[in-house]
């Protein structure tokens, strides 16, 4: 019996190079070689002001510096490169899209916007030159934060009179009428601040122009190499076939690297072509803070009507989304909030309305979870408030609102981010809750809390539930080729930022094709190997590329069986493939290795290698009346296929935490954290668990520490790792995980995505636990000790007054 790889905790193949220092991240390419010595480096002069008109740029001192090769401003751009960057995902509700240029034209709209690019022999010199450039500005009033944007006393774009870029309403049933008729009604506002992806490797681009070939090869630390390629070709006026883009090892993404093209992805290739020298740019940490995208900032107004059993009869949510200075990535984040807010529940009627507004701050594009943490925060606060009002257990209110297992597929009557109906494919929420309550000890917590209180310790327990639309289309593809030595090359267009794609896709191929795992080599994100792909985001890699890989493997397998059947003069149905060998079912002595089938599939007479020589023993005398390659067949043992789903899959999960609050310092310590999640069938449980661990850690950062501290002038006050606090090991509790598997009926492997799940409900869980510990309402996140301290002081003061 051959080993089955799907579902096994197979160790990662990528690790051997990564733990020995042989990984190749974009900034590593060419290092220590002649090409490295030839490579020029770029740096950008970035706006120090949030909103200003550029009056003059003086580069005369900078150009004199030894080693400076070229300096570019907007004036040097031409053709499509001088046009605004594209709106990637247009939407009818995005009525006033605005995008920037690769280098600022006339006006800068956030601190960090690129104005000038310097190219020199060395990064240190580029920075000297940047410092020597003089720019004079005429200041314009900055619009910072949602409250200022909504007030619209000043405008980010003069032709957008209310600062609103997009406005969308969706309704299922008549929520306002349902609320008016409900026995209980609550109304409140909820707020989430900005955070950001902050991968440890920032962005990086390296480009090299081949003069003879008039082609470009570009390496980029991106989550979508195929689209970066298309953008470069379009912006630089080149044929698609003359541009190659490779995402090599990438040091984390979490969403920020799905945005494209970044200005630098146009400017670096532009310079490489013009200077005919390799050029690279590696973002430094401060640049990343002030010019790479953020997410999360939203203000929500909620009205909910419910009955005595805690059933939501009507829910009406209006919210404002801070999209920063431009909208190149469209309005995916608020659309996701507006739909995913519903979680595992079925309100009687739902109405949601949002406005996405401009501010003079860095653009907003998806960060792991993309709009979902905000939506879940809104819904879970709502569940907790209903429980408080009715004096019910918080989990009982949730149970009363769950979609039941026999109600799938469940249609919410809304349109999801992929433009398709919001229909949940499968799930079992009541079972999840039972598992979670057991793990965290929900029913015995009151006693624990009371006992701790006797010792003067304040404990609280919290819960948060979510449903996550994963694996959105439109498609992904895969190509598989069996080499004559029996090794199997697999290529997908999708990129990888550390999720173990090399390993999990090899696991699928090993099973589907019947070849040893060690013989499989997977290449991701290299347009030379696979040209059509969408990108790595929205927990779609396993669902989309995994399914495509399975389909391509099945095609390859069918072809191998056909070719072997011709040779062995039998029917393909009589053959099987195991361990890289095709053999007769029931008579394994009649067999032929897959590598030799690959030789036979290509009727070329040159015996390049041993496999080819060996294969000649199987070659049958040819029939001169038929062509050597039969009609309908192609030479070579390869298969290519695409997977395109009808709509997204819906993963789900629930988290619970016990926290202790220090009475003196208001520090929030997480005592225990439990996760139950369902991402359908698991390809590799070890990797899925790793994704959950990492997600929860990011969620804890978002819940307790991470904000983008803009002052009223639009200066980011915490643009360093010293001031933007991300969790270290000391802030992260030991997690307990429980798996539930409800396979998705939508794809051949029954999988749903797992990449973002961990992060989504954490803020809601912590808020719930803090409320429970302190008996006060939490309406805004994140919640660091000083904020909590202030809230407690204010609550105490009110209590004294009344």
């Amino acid at each position, binding site marked *: 019996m051959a080993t089955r790889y799907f579902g096994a905790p197979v160790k990662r193949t990528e690790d051997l190079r990564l733990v020995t220092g042989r990984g190749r991240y974009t900034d590593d390419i060419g290092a220590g070689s002649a090409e490295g010595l030839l490579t020029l480096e770029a740096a950008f002069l970035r706006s120090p002001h949030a909103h200003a008109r550029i009056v003059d740029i003086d580069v005369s001192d900078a150009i004199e510096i030894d080693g400076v090769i070229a300096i570019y401003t907007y004036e040097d751009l031409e053709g499509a490169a001088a046009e605004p960057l594209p709106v990637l995902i247009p939407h009818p509700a995005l009525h006033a899209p605005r995008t920037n240029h690769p280098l600022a034209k006339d006006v800068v709209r956030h601190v960090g916007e690129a104005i000038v690019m310097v190219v020199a022999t060395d990064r240190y010199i580029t920075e000297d030159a940047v410092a020597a450039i003089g720019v004079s500005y005429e200041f314009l009033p900055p619009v910072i934060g949602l409250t200022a944007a909504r007030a619209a006393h000043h405008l980010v774009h003069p032709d957008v009179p209310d600062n609103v870029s997009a406005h969308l309403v969706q309704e299922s049933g008549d929520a306002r009428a349902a609320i008016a008729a409900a026995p209980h009604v609550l109304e409140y506002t909820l707020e989430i601040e900005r955070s950001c992806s902050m991968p440890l490797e920032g962005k990086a681009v390296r480009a090299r122009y081949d003069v003879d070939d008039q082609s470009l090869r570009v390496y980029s630390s991106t989550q979508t190499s195929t689209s970066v390629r298309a953008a470069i070709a379009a912006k630089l006026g080149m044929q698609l076939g003359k541009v190659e883009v490779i995402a090599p090892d990438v040091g984390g993404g979490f969403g920020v690297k799905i945005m494209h093209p970044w200005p630098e992805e146009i400017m670096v290739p532009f310079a490489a072509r013009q200077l005919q020298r390799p050029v690279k740019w590696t973002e*430094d940490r401060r640049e990343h803070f002030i010019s790479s995208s953020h997410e999360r900032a939203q203000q929500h107004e909620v009205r909910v009507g419910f009955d005595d059993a805690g059933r939501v009869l009507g829910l009406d949510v209006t919210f404002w989304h801070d999209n920063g200075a431009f909208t190149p990535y469209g309005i995916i984040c608020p659309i996701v909030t507006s739909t995913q807010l519903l979680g595992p529940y079925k309100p009687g009627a739902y109405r949601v309305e949002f406005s996405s507004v401009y501010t003079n701050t860095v653009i907003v594009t998806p960060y792991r979870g993309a709009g979902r943490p905000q939506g879940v925060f809104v819904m879970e606060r709502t569940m907790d408030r209903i429980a408080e009002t009715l004096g019910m257990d918080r989990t009982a209110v949730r149970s009363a609102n769950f979609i039941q297992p026999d109600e799938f597929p469940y249609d919410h009557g809304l349109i999801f981010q992929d433009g398709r109906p919001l229909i949940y494919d499968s799930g079992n929420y009541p079972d999840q809750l039972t598992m979670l309550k057991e793990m965290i000890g929900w029913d015995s917590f009151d006693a624990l809390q009371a006992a701790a209180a006797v010792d003067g310790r304040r404990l609280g327990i919290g819960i948060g539930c979510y449903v996550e639309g994963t694996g959105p289309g439109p498609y992904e593809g895969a190509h598989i080729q069996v080499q004559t030595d029996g090794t199997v090359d697999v290529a997908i267009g999708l990129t990888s930022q550390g999720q173990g794609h090399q390993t999990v896709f090899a696991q699928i191929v090993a099973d589907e094709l019947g070849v040893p795992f060690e013989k499989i080599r997977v290449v991701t994100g290299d347009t030379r190997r696979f040209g059509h792909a969408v990108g790595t985001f929205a927990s779609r890699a396993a669902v989309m590329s995994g399914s495509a890989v399975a389909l391509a493997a099945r095609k390859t397998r069918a072809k191998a069986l056909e070719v072997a059947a011709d040779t062995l003069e039998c029917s393909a149905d009589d053959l099987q493939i195991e361990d890289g060998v095709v053999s007769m079912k029931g008579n394994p002595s009649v067999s032929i290795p897959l590598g030799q089938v690959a030789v036979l599939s290509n009727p070329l007479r040159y015996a390049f290698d041993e496999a080819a020589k060996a294969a000649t023993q199987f070659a049958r005398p040819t029939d001169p009346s038929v062509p050597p390659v039969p009609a309908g067949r192609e030479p070579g043992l390869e298969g290519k296929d695409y997977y395109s789903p009808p709509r997204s899959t819906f993963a789900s999960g629930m988290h619970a935490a016990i926290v202790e609050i220090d009475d003196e310092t208001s520090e929030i310590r997480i005592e225990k954290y439990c996760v139950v999640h369902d991402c359908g069938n698991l390809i590799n449980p070890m990797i899925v668990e790793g994704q959950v661990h*990492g997600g929860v850690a990011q969620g804890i950062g978002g819940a307790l520490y991470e904000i983008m501290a803009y002052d009223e002038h639009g200066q980011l006050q915490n643009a360093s790792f010293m001031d933007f606090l991300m969790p270290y090991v000391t802030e992260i509790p030991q997690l307990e995980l429980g798996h539930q598997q409800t396979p998705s009926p939508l794809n051949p492997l029954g999988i749903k995505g797992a990449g973002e799940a961990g992060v989504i409900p954490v803020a809601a869980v912590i808020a719930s636990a803090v409320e429970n510990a302190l008996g006060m309402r939490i309406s805004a996140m994140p919640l660091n000790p000083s904020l909590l301290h202030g809230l407690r002081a204010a609550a105490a003061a009110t209590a004294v007054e009344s």
Partner: protein
Amino acid sequence: MTESRPAGRRLPVTVTVNGVARTADAEPRRTLSDFVRHDLGLTGTHVGCEHGVCGACTVLIDGDPVRSCLVLAVSAQGHDVTTVEGLGQPDTVTELGPVQRAFRDCHALQCGFCTPGFLTTITAGIAENPTPTRDEAVDMIAGNLCRCTGYQNIVEAVLTAARYAAGDDTPGGPAGHGAAGVEH
């Protein structure tokens, strides 16, 4: 304009890297991380912040963990530097150093960008304390940032690496509910 390498005074710097004496010219302001990565071509050492907070650039100088983004190349003159490339033999699974092997076995890395800094830090840590408790393992890595793993498996890897280094080959596995990784 000039096509040659930069202005500024450049001094020859000789350091012993992973046991081999290497010399290259560097401006006095050049950081050791840039020197190791770009002048010596040892790109295993990574730069995550360039201000001494993330620990990704950690190398061992005379056996002690040091943030190479905060050290000037010229001040490393004459010292022994160990980078991630010097922690094990890169060719086969079994020839990984104990910390490298533990990282793989425990799934203690995802994107791998922070990993070299953890590997060097832990190598020095278990040289100093060969039998860390779980709390000591946490302490050992408390100055390094990882944005991917959530740290749980890295703590497990510290404990496993200490055992491997002491000659106890009982395989370590990822933390939490998961089964130990299957070797392929």
